[in-house]
């Protein structure tokens, strides 16, 4: 449960909303129970009065109060339900934002490269699944449990007032054990299964991906069928565990309902003796058992929610681990640079988390204004070097110091936002004229000049589709816009045709005059002019 604490704190930062939302649910639940109980009371009362009247006795009955009450409850249940759903969905959407913003801020403090051992896409999809499980914490778990407890308390108090203390005590025993059965017991009995479940699923996912990646080899060896059968067994195990948890949830729900029904019958049984003793009236005798029957609805959704709590818990734990990972000290400029130097790497070793070092004892000094080219085959570790020099990837050994820099990473990263917003990331104060100038440089001004929204053209899946080369040029433009004195370009012209590249290169040399540049590519022709060239070999 400790893992959930930061998220619970986050949720409870909206105490007023939570209380109002809970209050609305309470009104709905109480109205539902009240409607039935009052109707039961009314029918019994009228039946008795009707019999008395038929027997010729003088009897009076107040029809207006109960009749009005029934109508009131019918309306308040409807309105309560509607208001509760609208209000609480609003709350859920707000919490959704809170959770994401909080997590984003925490992630932003961690080291960028290799946030976990998983590949980017896998990591992202797991993160999504984990965050999604936190969304329902309030509406599925916290609110219903709190309200169920409150309604139980209400029932016990009413039993004490209308019947007697002993009945109230017994009811308390019945109902709270039903509540425990529907909540804590479900959690404890499914905790292990559901917390292991996501881990197993992850392992199976990796195995399926391996199966698909090795499909050709497996087919060649005539083993696809066997390996697929093995995967099927793993999946079967996963779903039978899930089914086991589902069955437990189902039986817990059934037994908590059983206890509630038993409580109702018990109340009726005890009520009869109180009725025979003349301590309570017939209508009151009917009222409490019927109210108890209505409790089933209050409990109905609890077991399922608690059956998932184990998974939520481990999701929360993973998210905490993820966002508490190695802190990132940023690419902030270091002050220990000798005058006239833009970057010094001394005795640098780099390695990925799961492999042998790519570089060892690497030394490099780049002076201010120097244009350095780094050339090497794909796979020679260029990008890792660029990542390490920029500080994106922590050095395994040794150190890197540099002046403030802007870095064009190997993969183009554009956000689902306007062209303007994408460019301004590098230089928030840049004017429109500056933006157009830089677009002109990478030959994208004409392309966006034709768009109806100009600088406000929406990029990304929902907006204007850029080709790989176009996206690359927008990425390049963004880095060039940055006022930082050091610029690192990793394969700046991927996907850009040779003629365009040549024209851009010429203009680039002028633009980069006075700046320090480190440009990396697979061949010298894919680089703007350089003063010095480093060749990377294996």
């Amino acid at each position, binding site marked *: 449960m400790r893992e959930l604490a930061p998220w619970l704190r986050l949720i409870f930062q909206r105490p007023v909303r939570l209380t109002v939302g809970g209050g609305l649910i309470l009104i709905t639940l109480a109205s539902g129970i009240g409607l039935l109980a009052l109707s039961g009371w*009314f029918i*019994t009362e009228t039946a008795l009065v009707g019999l008395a009247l038929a027997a010729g006795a003088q009897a009076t009955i107040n029809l207006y109060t109960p009749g009005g009450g029934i109508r009131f409850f019918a309306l308040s249940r*409807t309105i309560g339900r509607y208001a509760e759903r609208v209000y609480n969905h609003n709350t859920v959407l707000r919490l959704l934002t809170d959770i994401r913003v909080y997590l984003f801020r925490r992630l932003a403090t961690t080291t960028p490269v290799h946030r976990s051992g998983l590949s980017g896409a896998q990591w992202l999809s797991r993160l999504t699944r984990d965050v999604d499980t936190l969304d329902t914490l309030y509406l599925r778990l916290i609110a219903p449990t709190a309200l169920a407890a409150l309604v139980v308390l209400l029932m016990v108090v009413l039993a004490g007032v209308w019947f007697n203390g002993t009945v109230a005590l017994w009811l308390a025993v019945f109902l709270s054990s039903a509540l425990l059965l529907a909540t804590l017991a479900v959690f404890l009995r499914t905790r292990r299964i559901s917390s292991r479940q996501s881990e197993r699923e992850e392992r199976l996912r990796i*195995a399926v991906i391996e199966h698909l990646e090795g499909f050709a080899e497996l087919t060649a060896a005539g083993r696809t069928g066997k390996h697929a059968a093995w995967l099927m067994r793993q999946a079967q195990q996963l779903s039978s565990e899930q089914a086991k948890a589902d069955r437990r949830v189902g039986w817990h729900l059934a037994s908590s309902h059983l206890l509630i029904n038993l409580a109702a019958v018990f109340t009726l049984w005890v009520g009869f003796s109180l009725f025979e003793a003349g301590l309570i009236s017939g209508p009151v005798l009917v009222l409490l058992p019927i109210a108890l029957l209505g409790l089933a609805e209050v409990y109905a959704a609890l077991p399922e929610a608690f059956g998932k709590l184990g998974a939520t818990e481990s999701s929360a734990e993973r998210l905490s681990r993820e966002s508490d990972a190695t802190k990132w000290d940023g690419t902030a400029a270091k002050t220990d640079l000798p005058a006239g130097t833009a970057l010094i790497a001394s005795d640098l070793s780099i390695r990925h988390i799961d492999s042998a070092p790519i570089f060892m004892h690497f030394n490099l000094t780049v002076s201010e204004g120097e244009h350095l080219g780094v050339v090497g085959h794909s796979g020679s570790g260029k990008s890792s070097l660029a990542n390490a020099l920029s500080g994106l990837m922590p050095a395994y050994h040794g150190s890197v110091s540099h002046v403030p820099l802007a870095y064009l990473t190997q993969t183009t990263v554009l956000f689902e936002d306007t062209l303007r917003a994408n460019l301004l990331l590098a230089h928030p104060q840049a004017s429109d004229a500056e933006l157009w100038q830089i677009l002109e440089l990478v030959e994208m001004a004409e392309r966006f000049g034709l768009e109806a929204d100009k600088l406000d053209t929406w990029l990304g899946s929902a907006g204007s589709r850029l080709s790989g080369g176009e996206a690359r040029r927008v990425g390049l433009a963004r880095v060039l816009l940055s006022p930082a004195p050091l610029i690192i370009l990793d394969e700046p012209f991927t996907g850009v045709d040779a003629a365009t590249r040549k024209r851009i290169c010429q203009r680039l040399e002028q633009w980069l005059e006075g700046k320090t540049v480190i440009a990396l590519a697979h061949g010298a022709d894919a680089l703007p002019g350089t003063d010095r060239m480093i060749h990377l070999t294996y």
Partner: protein
Amino acid sequence: MAETADRQSDGAGEPSSAPNQREVKRWLASLARGNRQWIRATVAAGVVSGLATVLQMYFLATLVHRGVVEKVPVTDLTLPFILVLLAIVVRAASQGLQTHMAARCSEDVRRDARRQINRQWQAAGPVAISHASAGELSREWLDHVEALHGYFARYLPQMVLSLIIPLIILVLVFTLDWLAGIFLLLSAPLIPLFMALVGMGAAKLNQQHFQAISRLSGQFLDKVRGLSTLQLFGQTEAASLLIQSRSDHYRRITMKTLRVAFLSSAVLEFFASMAIAVIAIYIGFGLLGYITYGPSDQLTLFSGLLILLLAPEFFQPLRTLSQHYHDRAAALGAGAEILERMDKLGPRFQGDHPKRVTNQAAGPGDRIELQSVTVEYRRGHPVFRNLSLTFEKGSCVALTGPSGGGKSTLLHLLAGFVEPNEGAVSVLGQAPGADSFGWLGQTGFLVNGTWADNLRLTSPQASDIAIETALKNVGLRPLLDSREQGIYSYVSEDGQGLSGGQARRLSLARIFVADYDLILLDEPTAGLDTDSEVYVLEALHKLARAGKTLIFSTHHQALLTLANRMLLVTEGEVHDA
């Protein structure tokens, strides 16, 4: 984050082949048919639970009537008390059984669906599989199939129950008091109509809700995906503010539509509440004798109370159904994606066993023959036309030529991954792929396990010594010696993974262990570090000397000299070079 167009173009050019909802429903129905007995058992348990509920209410009403109106002392009411307890226990037991069977049913359905997808993969073959993203395929196999759970476990049985149970209650109420029955019927004018209303509202609600969540998550994910870039530009705080304001914006839009969408469930709630209220007041007035028409003079506390107790149960199945409606939406969505993929992968597979081995004529056992083979992926754009080739057994053949010239297609033909549109291929007297052979792609393939696991994946019978020898042959011995448990240590251990070159050598070791006659290799040395390159060359040399038939595509000079025959593959033409 904007995807670059090369990634998007993948599949964008094809005509949209998204299966329609009817097709998805038919597929779901076919899955249900295979597990009919469990669905029926689930429904049966639900019906028993409904009947037990009716009985429980019946005995409760009896008890109240006899105790309160007839003033029977509680000691004489033992029998109805026992009966009500019995009904309660049966109700709980069948309720538990219902979820029990539902879980079982969905378990079987998911297994069937996964098996179908597996067969489809197998029928499609490695080339088609390699064109799709492994991540997406695995998501379909795992998550999408998982999304069918709620539909089969909850929605489908509840759909039937929400017809049967209200009907039973309605009949009972009509026999007790037909006017009260009419009230119930009026409040739910026609149950199908009511269900449609619930369905429409719930569908809209779901759509809106999920759209909102996916938009909110999309905003968040877009920023997380590009987090490194934001960190580099020092813009993370601005981005988090943006997530907040965008999310807020979406929330406001969504709430506008949700306010309307929730009305449909409010309508259901309204009818249910009002029906209870009207019935209660009608019964009350009837019992007082204020109502002079209709059957109300027959009302007793028993019948009146029973009708009241049954009224909420009349609406309960419908309310449950509307809660499960999102299961239906989820299953339809997942099913559509699964079917779309299956259609993309080829003709939907129907039979029991995938047949990849074709009816191609068996040829001579000492050579590999291509007889006037034509292959075209797109109509009118043949990769090869009327190509005839012969390779002797035991030869070492290098295929060279520009990328896109057809080297890979030729290898795929020999592997049986691709079938010729015309002509025939025979490999050492068999159809291609009929006998197992060695295949080395451009990416090494390893599974999360020990070295032995990795090699036994393709050769389950391999002895420890054979495995060690094979690993030695590809130069992985020093690495193995550094591990404590030898071939039984994990391939990726203590953060020591394999480089790309080492992974490919591991794949090559599999070929050594298996002792295949034919070995096909696609650019075996491309992108390797010098170390690995030397080992791979040496290993191939050993295989060639051992009399294996080696056919590989390459540009690498050292490999070209290894071959005793070199073929130039360009624009669908194959020449000896």
